[in-house]
């Protein structure tokens, strides 16, 4: 039940925000903050209480209630280390998201209601072990995103919102198709992932897996920003209000990669075997392409948007290595990019754009931001350094592990991936240097340089930024805190079968 308390607190928050009278609408953010804090508290409690001793069960906190008998659907939630890590991530991002939208004064009730709905849906996905239930939570996330971006967004918001929604819906249509077909073909009258995975090799004929796997995997991976279906990510991220960019990059993209691992890969092992190389190649293209395109951007938020495509490429590559090293790296990278991506968007969207009203790198450079907004410059530097994968931050551990894991299965892909890593450093440093530490120009005076003094960075922003920076630093210095539960989860029948079976060939 402690797991369910995470999404229940979010949905309770939605109800409370909705019934708030109009006079008291500025309390909406407090309710949202409380709901987010409660969610993180429950997630952390579950994380700390996860028993990792050798004989302990891999799945803990099991709740199983029959729900819809007609289709054999049950309300089935539990967690292993992977789920718990992502639940904690969701909690952290939720709090940071609320803190960074503390200045939302236009229709705050609707804003925080949609925001908490997404949070609740995300919590739900990370703990569902019934395919139907998982899909329900997965879909809950889609519609609120549209309204948050279309109503509170910035640049080209209605276009960005609709594009993002269409991509998400197309992806989930593929997932829905594969889900319905899985039920029809399996004939076991159940959506229990463990039961289905148990039957996977016996019941699902290869001719079925060969199309069901890519449908399911790609359907989820669209949300994870797999190349060439990533184009929603930059436009969507840029159009979204800060908190929503943080959510999108921080947790929503992880929904895709997590579900691809949890559902597509465990249910269709033979399909995975057939499509593995294709996915690895797409992931590598994503790494390289995301980095190169980010190098050419003039808008700082687009740089961060494409960097998400780049980092999520690592996750997907790690997933298909199918060995413990690569997979644990993928999970670490999900966590790490969640934190770092959230932090980058927070700086760009809230600290910078809300004050300067521009995101053009050249215009920002002329403002001397490192002097005008030192805290923002400091935070962005930390985030950039973490994003580049400097040792000591979470990004380094994650990407290093993924690269080590893919050495054996995909040696050739390491060359483009290595180039991608170098370009990542290049675009990150370029963005950092040109927008924050540009030297004073001697030419004609730039009009953008003469600006009214910016509002100081608020306490809420500082708290949110510190929370995220501390997390990435903490994990970078002591990765064992995440690696141990991940490793413990790999012993479960779901994962164990996946790893051993395919890696031995």
């Amino acid at each position: 039940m402690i797991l369910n308390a995470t999404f229940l607190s979010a949905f309770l928050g939605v109800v409370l925000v909705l019934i708030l009278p109009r006079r008291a609408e500025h309390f909406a953010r407090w309710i949202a903050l409380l709901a987010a804090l409660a969610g993180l508290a429950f997630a952390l409690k579950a994380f700390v209480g996860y028993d990792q001793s050798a004989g302990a069960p891999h799945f803990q906190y099991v709740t199983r209630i029959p729900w819809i008998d007609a289709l054999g659907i049950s309300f089935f939630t539990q967690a292993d280390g992977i789920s718990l890590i992502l639940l904690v991530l969701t909690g952290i991002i939720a709090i940071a998201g609320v803190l960074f939208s503390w200045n939302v004064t236009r229709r705050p009730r609707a804003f925080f209601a949609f925001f908490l709905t997404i949070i609740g849906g995300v919590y739900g996905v990370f703990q569902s072990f019934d395919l139907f239930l998982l899909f329900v939570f997965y879909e809950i996330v889609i519609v609120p995103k549209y309204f948050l971006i279309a109503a509170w967004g910035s640049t080209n918001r209605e276009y960005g919102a609709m594009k993002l929604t269409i991509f998400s819906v197309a992806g989930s249509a593929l997932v829905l198709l594969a889900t319905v077909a899985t039920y029809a073909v399996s004939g076991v009258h159940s959506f229990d992932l463990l039961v289905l995975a148990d039957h996977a090799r016996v019941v699902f004929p290869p001719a079925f897996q060969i199309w069901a796997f890519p449908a399911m995997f790609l359907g989820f991976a669209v949300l994870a920003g797999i190349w060439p279906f990533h184009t929603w990510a930059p436009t969507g991220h840029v159009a979204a209000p800060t908190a929503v960019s943080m959510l999108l990059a921080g947790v929503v993209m992880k929904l895709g990669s997590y579900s691809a691992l949890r559902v597509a890969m465990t249910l269709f092992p033979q399909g995975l075997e057939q499509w593995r190389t294709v996915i690895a190649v797409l992931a590598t293209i994503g790494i390289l392409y995301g980095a190169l395109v980010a190098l050419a951007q003039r808008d700082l938020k687009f740089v961060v948007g494409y960097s998400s495509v780049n980092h999520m490429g690592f996750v997907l590559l790690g997933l298909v290595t199918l060995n413990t090293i690569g997979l644990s790296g993928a999970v670490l990278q999900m966590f790490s990019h969640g934190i770092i991506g959230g932090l980058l968007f927070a700086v760009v969207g809230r600290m910078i754009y809300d004050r300067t009203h521009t995101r053009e790198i050249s215009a920002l450079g002329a403002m001397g931001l490192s002097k005008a907004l030192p805290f923002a410059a400091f935070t962005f530097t930390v985030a950039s350094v973490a994003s580049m994968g400097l040792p000591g931050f979470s990004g380094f551990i994650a990407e290093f592990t993924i690269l080590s894991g893919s050495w054996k299965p995909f040696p050739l892909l390491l060359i483009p991936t290595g180039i991608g890593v170098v370009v990542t450093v290049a675009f990150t440093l370029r963005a950092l240097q040109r927008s924050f530490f540009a030297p004073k120009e001697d030419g004609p005076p730039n009009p953008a340089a003469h600006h009214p003094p910016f509002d100081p960075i608020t306490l809420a922003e500082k708290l949110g930024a510190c929370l995220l920076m501390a997390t990435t630093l903490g994990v970078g210095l002591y990765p064992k805190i995440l690696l141990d539960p991940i490793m413990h989860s790999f012993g479960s029948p779901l994962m164990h079968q996946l790893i051993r079976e395919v890696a031995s060939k």
Partner: protein
Amino acid sequence: MNAEAYIHLLKLLAPEAILVVTALVVLGLGLSPSSERMRPLLTRLTLFGGLVAASVLYLFSKNACILNGMVVLDPLGRIFKLVILGLGLITVIFSAASPVRRHYAEYLALILFSTVGMMLLAGTEELLMIFLALELTSISLYVLTAYLKDSTASAEAGLKYFLIGGVSAAFLLFGLSLVYGVAGTTNLRALVAISPALAGDPLMLVGIVLTLVGFGFKVAAVPFHLWAPDVYEGAPTPTAALVASGSKVAGFFILAKMLALGFGASVGMAAWSQFRPGWLPVLAIMAALSILLGNLAALVQSNVKRLLAYSAIAHSGYMLLGLTSASEAGFTAVLFYVIIYALTTIGAFGVVSVVERRRGGSQLQDFDGLHKTAPGLALCLLVFLISLAGIPPLAGFFGKFYMFSETLAASGKGANPSMLWLVVLAIALNAVSLYYYLIVLKHVFVAKPAEEERVKAPACGPLIAALALSVLLLGLFPNVLLEPLRAAVKNYTSSLVLP
């Protein structure tokens, strides 16, 4: 027929009789010169009669089958009669504030008459009775559609509905006469016994196809859908709500029953490029066309009622798809979905009628900024449209999921189930449908309102809220409706086992 049989019949049809009496009383009161002032009284009287009929139906009715299947009452029929009656009464509540100014009493009476027709339809297993009940429903609906005397759109819609409906009735009657000619009986249960012997009979097949054409008109399936957009747009909104909900429920209920019973043996096959004659390929083609055309045409609509009409066509397609499963579970899924659909769509029409009254139209722009002027209504409309788009946790999602799953499961367990092509089409276009629902919701939630002031809640506000809540709750706990329905269908199919 002796007196005892009449009393028995009256007992069985007591709810319908109560409705007819109520309608006559309302008509009589409407003759009085001060009928305009009696509007609230007439509405209340109608509702009272309806509630009495519903409680009689719910509390006192017994299962029976008399006059050779002319009038039947079983658990399944009872559920559907209650649903239809409920939808009729919701329509009455919407009418209380409708643009219908003149002859209000007659308007209410006609709603009751069409409700009686639909209820009779849900309680018969006799081809002739099916035809008569359909006609009673349709003729009342024609008049209800053309009710706005000073609106040319309403007159045009009524005429169109009447002409196309008349032709469809001819098709239906011709089809039924062929079936009777081949089988020698008009009783559906007797047809069950005979139909295996007639499975390949060409004349029987022609009869079946013509019957399906007739029903295609009733449920607005492509290519027999031409009346729907005009009727939804031109008719008084309560009428459109009834056409979209009650008439659809009754139509799909009787269609499912006829397919399961009378035509059971002439199934045919509709696997991709392996068609074999029977009702299955006909349904599959109608389903595919309806899903395609309904969803694509809805994309370009600028009037919300017209948009709902095309969405209704698409939903007919989904439900026809469910019927192609030709299995008990599949029929249960369709019957479940049609109830959910009716609740959702009547709620959406409720919101539209409120907006229409305030802004004088139902164009997309008229919905601008509804979140500001009527936040409750906006939230309800969100629930209805998102449910129609099939997004969880609302009831529309589970309904579709159940229908698609059972259809696919019924069509084979191999790597490629035979109805896969249709399910792929349906899921793909269902994803497209979210686009046009979001366009409406964008006007509601994102666009700036034309006028700033907040309006006070409409009288039917609580009803719309209750409908929205039921759509949400049925999505979270579908068992509440699904389990009784499953039991009723099971009871029904087990009664079909031949002695």
